[in-house]
């Protein structure tokens, strides 16, 4: 015989409702941060908005599978990246289309080569525009861009990024390293022209 009292069931329901409300509130508080990452994982604002709605709908349905005390932002981003892959928004790169990359000094050297005689040598970064950055980032292949977006823009740790993307930490680190070089090459192309 169970020890359940007649009052236990309503109490359980009330606790459940309270936990769910708290979960939903916490998830919504993180929406701005999740959106900033989502926006750069896909090409357009519309895609990012669709993805956010699908992500939150799924998260609210699956709230019980979230383990309290763990990283809710990473949990939401994991749903979001999985949905992004499931919906075929990502085109997988074929192995023979590995992007070209240059060394880490490449962008600076290119900017210096094209420097006007009177340009301030100390403010090289100001020769870049925000539009150039957005455009260069979107030209970085997905595998590399995802890691840059999560770590350098979303401020996730390597471990969180590895969990979100379901790849080993070593893969996160190597993609980040190569991805940043690819981004700089793309930036050089956007800013200085054909490289």
């Amino acid at each position, binding site marked *: 015989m169970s020890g359940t009292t007649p009052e236990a069931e309503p109490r359980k329901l009330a606790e459940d409702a309270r936990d769910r409300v708290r979960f939903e509130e916490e998830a*919504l508080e993180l929406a*701005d941060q999740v959106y900033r990452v989502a926006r750069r994982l896909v090409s357009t604002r519309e895609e990012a908005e669709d993805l956010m*709605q699908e992500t939150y709908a799924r998260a609210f349905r699956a709230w019980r599978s979230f383990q309290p005390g763990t990283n809710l932002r990473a949990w939401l981003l994991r749903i979001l990246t999985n949905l992004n892959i499931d919906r075929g928004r990502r085109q997988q790169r074929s192995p023979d289309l590995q992007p070209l990359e240059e060394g880490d000094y490449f*962008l600076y050297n290119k900017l210096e080569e094209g420097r006007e005689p009177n340009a301030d040598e100390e403010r*090289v970064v100001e020769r870049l525009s925000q539009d150039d950055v957005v455009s260069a*980032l979107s030209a970085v292949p997905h595998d590399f861009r995802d890691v840059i977006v999560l770590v350098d823009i979303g401020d996730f740790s390597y471990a969180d990024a590895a969990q979100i993307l379901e790849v080993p930490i070593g893969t996160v680190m190597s993609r980040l390293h190569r991805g940043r070089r690819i981004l700089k090459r793309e930036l050089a192309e956007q800013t200085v022209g054909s490289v």
Partner: protein
Amino acid sequence: MSPGFDADPCDQCEEMLQPYLDRELNEAERAEAQEHLDSCSYCRKRYKFEEELRVFVRQSAVEEMSPDLKQKLAELRTPLF
């Protein structure tokens, strides 16, 4: 293992740029990179640029969510009754 600075020191310093800024180098590697940076303005300028670039990329990539989307997400919440 540390790449060392036996070959072209600036090439080696370029290879250490990302792990240096990410604080991924061990003490000996970091000291080695630092020693080179202290005496090489060529590399120092490029390291400074990389630091500023990372901040600039982060700032440039930010696009805020529309109030309309915020509202739509809130409407996805489970009704209480």
